[in-house]
């Protein structure tokens, strides 16, 4: 204790405590330095910069299509949103029309990745509260999704499947049937998860009322996605500014609205059901046709001069790419707007103050932040 001791009074010890980067309570290559008073947090200093990648700068040195192998690394649990947002931007600037079938395939990939990410995110709650059986169950079910991705793209975690103009390969034969079987299986599992996780009295005790975020605070601090919707603000890019074929699909935005840690996880659970609904419609409605519009040779691939901001709704919120081109074979500048930046770097400095040490990792994991998007 004396190593980290800052000062001592009759009642309390004041000391520094590191949550990360090598700590089971943190997500990714990231750290919070906490100034503690006894068991409570007095001050929070986020300590990013441990990823040592520099995605945005690297993108300026690579060809437009080469970047597709780099950007999925910005969010490991849900890499596909990067690929789609980047492709949407490039396609808009080049004026490429994407075939309908490819748009449906993109929605299928995005929604499947969203489900995988929600399962992963919900397991974070189990990991921080010691509910390890739920972690293993959720990660086990996520593995079936990775099997599907492996069959479709050849990769389990990083898929590198999107390409300007569409997707690299068409759906393999029988893949949609297998997807349908998986959705049946997952729907049968959900009531079990509800009972095991959300109706568990200890989980409720540890999360209800914890880390309350008001709707005003959420908007003011730039929160998006389930974290924003859990505070009662029903904003979802898929509804507000539909892209791909979301306008043709029928789905709802579930409402929890209590703004605490429990509602943030519950929001994800309910949105997971909506993603299943979307996938079922895609299986029914997907048209025949080409899966890609032919684009120029990658070495001669030039995007006209200009800039564009493309965005998609990820499982964590708004994932945006601001792309600037000077007409070269490489981007002039690409700025990535990740959804975790606002909550993990800024809002955390307010939210964690006064919290007890045992609640800190629960708060971190119920916000489902993805620190690589701080270090992009």
């Amino acid at each position, binding site marked *: 204790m004396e190593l980290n001791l800052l000062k001592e009074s009759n009642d309390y010890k004041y000391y520094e405590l590191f949550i990360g980067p090598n700590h089971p309570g943190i997500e990714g290559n990231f750290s919070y330095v906490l100034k503690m008073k006894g068991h409570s947090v007095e001050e929070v200093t986020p300590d990013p910069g441990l990823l040592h990648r520099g995605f945005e700068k690297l993108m300026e040195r690579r060809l437009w299509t080469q970047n597709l192998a780099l950007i999925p690394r910005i969010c490991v649990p849900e890499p596909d949103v990067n690929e789609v947002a980047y492709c949407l931007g490039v396609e808009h600037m080049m004026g490429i029309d994407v075939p309908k079938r490819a748009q449906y395939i993109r929605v299928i990939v995005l929604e499947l990745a969203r489900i995988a990410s929600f399962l992963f995110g919900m397991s974070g709650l189990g*990991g921080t*509260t*010691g509910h390890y059986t739920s972690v*293993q169950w959720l990660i086990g079910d996520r593995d079936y999704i990775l099997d599907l991705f492996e069959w479709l793209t050849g990769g389990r975690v990083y898929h590198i499947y999107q390409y300007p103009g569409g997707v690299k390969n068409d759906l393999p034969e029988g893949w949609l049937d297998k997807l349908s079987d998986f959705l049946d299986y997952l729907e049968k599992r959900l009531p079990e998860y509800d009972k095991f996780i959300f109706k568990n009295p200890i989980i409720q005790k540890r999360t209800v009322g914890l880390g309350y975020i008001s709707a005003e605070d959420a908007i003011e601090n730039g929160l998006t996605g389930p974290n924003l919707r859990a505070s009662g603000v029903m904003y979802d890019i898929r509804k507000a500014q539909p892209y791909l074929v979301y306008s043709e699909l029928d789905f709802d935005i579930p409402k929890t609205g209590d703004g605490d840690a429990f509602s943030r996880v519950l929001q994800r659970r309910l949105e997971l059901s909506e993603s299943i609904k979307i996938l079922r419609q895609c299986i029914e409605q997907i048209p025949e046709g080409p899966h890609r519009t032919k684009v120029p040779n990658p070495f001669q691939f030039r995007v006209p001069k200009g800039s564009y901001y493309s965005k998609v709704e990820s499982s964590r919120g708004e994932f945006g790419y601001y792309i600037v081109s000077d007409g070269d074979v490489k981007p002039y500048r690409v700025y990535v707007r990740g959804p975790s930046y606002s909550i993990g770097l800024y809002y955390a400095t307010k939210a964690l103050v006064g919290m*007890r040490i045992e609640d800190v990792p629960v708060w971190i994991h119920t916000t489902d932040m993805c620190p690589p998007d701080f270090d992009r």
Partner: protein
Amino acid sequence: MVIEFLIKLAQGLGIGALALATGLLFGGIGRKIIARIQRRYGPPFTQNYIDLFKLFSKGSVSHGWAFDLGLVAGFAPMLAALMFLPIGPFTLLPSDSSLIMIVYLMMMAYLGMAMGVLASGNPNSAIGMSRALMLMAGYEVPFAAVIFSVYLFSKTGYLTQIVAQQAGGFMNWNIVKMPLGFLAIEIALQGMLGEKPFDQAIAPAEIASGPMVELGGKYLGFGMIQHSVGLFLETGIVVDLFLGGAPNFWIFIAKQFVLYFIVILVDAILPRLRIHESTSFFWKLPLFLGILQAVIVIIQGGVLNV
């Protein structure tokens, strides 16, 4: 005299080795059962032996003499307490098998461990140890209430005599005569073994495994020995207090395993409470059950007629 002492010494070492081997085996089987509940294959049930062997063959980093001494002080009283525990028909020191002595030695072990890990200087260790002691303040109270009930009922504080009074079949066991006391001690056992929902002392996501964070190599090995021997000792006490002891060693460990099985099933399905919630829980339901049991024993006349 000398030969007698040497025989006792050899028997003592044998009991220590037996408790360690059984505790490690229980831990290994527990890991396997939990893995199956979690839909995993799990490690082999001999994994704990392999882990212990590996830890003792590794280099270790010390944090000074208090650290070294603390870990030995955490391990030695556990072994000493074993010498007074009736294991089936065998007790090394039957005339001294006082419950108070055993409980005292168990507390000494935790305090020894506290001294050691606090010397490491890591705030996670300090928080973990303060949580372990706070938890102890929680579960020791209902545990003491149950022991008080058994004292009142059996009119003795010696484990060998308590076991002898339960001879003659299932209906003579204290679990039948004092079911509320058994329930209270089973809940307290969950806390004593540090299993969920009472594993705040080592909560990995909160305090990076707490007391264990600075333990490596042989030091972690000592921690593992302490936990395994503690597992054998604590389940053994409950077997002797409530399940009538045992006519032989195999039945004794089978009864211990039943208790441990309940503990790991609860561990597999429940998450962790906050530390203050755990302590206040122990001071409510299990303590109430323990006190109620004592009141029932008193009303039944076993004491007032003395």
